[in-house]
């Protein structure tokens, strides 16, 4: 008797769970679906009341118009180059510093690590005006270098990779030392490869956040040809304030590469971002 009622309550709770999850998924997916559907409608169709769900035709006109009004090729290129350079710098410098902070003894270590912590605690906007003035003084505004500039070093990356070097037992380094490795060799040949999963997480994190960043590219690269996908979209918004089909096409074009990467490397993306969650 009791067993049966327990099974019944288990079943109802499962039904509730699935209903809630499916409902939630629909709410999560709907904006994306609506974006895709709208991108194939004409302006007048998009303004029909009651609205059509499916577009009357499959057409690429809106994509053509979005591509014609914004230099998407440049925007892709700028975004990709910014991401590549930021990732290289973050991984290289943060690995070196993270290793030194975790494994080496040197005077003033705590003070220097304090600088790392301080940067992590302050919002990036407090640095942005002087950083912009530096870029202007260096004469590199409107360039890929300007986009990369604040990402030359990563306090968060240093902090994060230090954690993973701390997790490596001391014996590993000692063994390498006995084999005649110097500090650099120990780091580069033995230790660095052991942090592979953390480096992957940092890569994903750096890439996604560089790609989403809006204020810095908006401030530093005003030339349309030097914009990133994010800042370019902000410009498109102004150009086509009521032409939503074109805006949807443009947004789709900007989102697609990252979404495809995400769908292919789901696990790495989710775990990477969750691992870096401490930020």
């Amino acid at each position, binding site marked *: 008797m009791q067993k049966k009622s327990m099974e019944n309550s288990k079943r109802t*709770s*499962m039904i509730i*769970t699935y209903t*809630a*999850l499916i409902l*939630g*998924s629909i709410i*999560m*997916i709907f*904006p994306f679906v609506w*974006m895709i559907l709208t991108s194939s409608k004409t302006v007048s169709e998009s*303004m029909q*009341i*009651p*609205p059509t769900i499916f577009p009357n035709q499959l057409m690429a006109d809106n994509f053509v118009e979005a591509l014609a009004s914004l230099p998407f090729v440049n925007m892709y290129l700028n975004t990709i180059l910014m991401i590549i350079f930021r990732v290289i710098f973050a991984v290289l410098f943060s690995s*070196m510093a993270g290793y030194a902070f975790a494994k*080496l*003894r*040197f*005077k003033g*270590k705590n003070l220097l690590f304090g*600088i790392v912590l301080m*940067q992590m605690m302050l*919002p990036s*906007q*407090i*640095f*942005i*005006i*002087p950083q*912009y*003035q530096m870029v202007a003084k260096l004469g590199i505004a409107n360039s890929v270098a300007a986009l990369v500039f604040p990402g030359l*070093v*990563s*306090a968060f990356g*240093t902090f994060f990779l230090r954690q993973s070097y701390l997790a490596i037992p001391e014996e590993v380094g000692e063994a390498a030392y006995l084999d005649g490795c110097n*500090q*650099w060799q120990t*780091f580069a040949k033995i230790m660095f490869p052991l942090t592979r999963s953390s480096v992957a997480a940092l890569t994903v994190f750096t890439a996604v956040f560089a790609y*989403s960043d*809006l*204020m810095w590219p*908006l401030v530093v690269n005003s030339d349309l040809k030097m914009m990133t996908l*994010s800042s370019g*979209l902000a410009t498109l*918004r102004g150009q086509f304030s009521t032409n*939503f089909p074109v*805006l949807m096409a*443009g*947004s789709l074009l900007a989102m697609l590469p*990252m*979404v495809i*990467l*995400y769908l292919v490397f789901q696990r790495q*993306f*989710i775990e990477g*971002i*969750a691992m870096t*969650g401490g*930020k």
Partner: protein
Amino acid sequence: MKSGKLSSAARREQNWGYLMVAPTIIGLIVLNVWPFIQTIYASFCEHLGFGHYKFIGLDNYINMFRDSDFWRATGNTLLFCVLTVPVGIFLALMVAIMLNARVKFKGGFRTIFFLPMVCAPAAITMVWRWIFNSEYGILNQILGTRIAWVTDSRVALVSCAIVAVWSAIGYDAVLLLSGLQNISKSYYEAASIDGAGKITQFFKITLPMISPTLFVTMIMRLMTSLKVYDLIYMMVEETNPALTSVQSLIYLFYRESFVAGSRGSGSAIAVWTVLIIGIVTVFQFIGQKKWVNYEV
């Protein structure tokens, strides 16, 4: 360790240490420490153009505190946190608990809820503006209403909060899920043998056990909400009549520093924002002692 008496091996180690932290530390000093000092200094200055500043004492702060737009931006920012953090964390916890149960397609659900995280806010906000559109937007069509979601100053901030919560649920849920997975199943088994129901189990086991993760997730969400900018910027352009009742502190900072070009008063807003973030963080850490359980 006394310097000067280091063995040659220890000295070598120390040199390697300096060499390896050098790029990061030099970079941080140039890109962050020095700009931080400059911003604080600039907040007491008037910007004369081309990076030249004149010291004017507290004038920027006095003007800022007299400016009603500034107080509204402060209020908007805090209200935005109130609207997004509790609801967002609650929904994320629900999603995490459901995903922690034995459901099929767990990975698929996780992927779907996490999706907004890899999309640029600029792109996401665009489709939400379309959904929220007062005349042709699908939301008003479904609800049969004619609410001006984005331009009515009474609801625009709520609309922004909806998008923020929708964007962050998956991310917060993934963090909370990893906390839930660390709770040993044996607690629940013991509790159900003792006859504790699901709700009792939630309050007596799940909530205390997950409280450290919950705390970290909440702090992060709060920080992000206090610094909100891109979402509101994309949603509410500068010509929108609802601007002053939606703009956050960082949005105001952006307009002041880079649109109006008054970098002195912009810097003052930035300093103020840092102060608010600091105060809120201190309160969070004091408050956590009451509910976060570290004895696992």
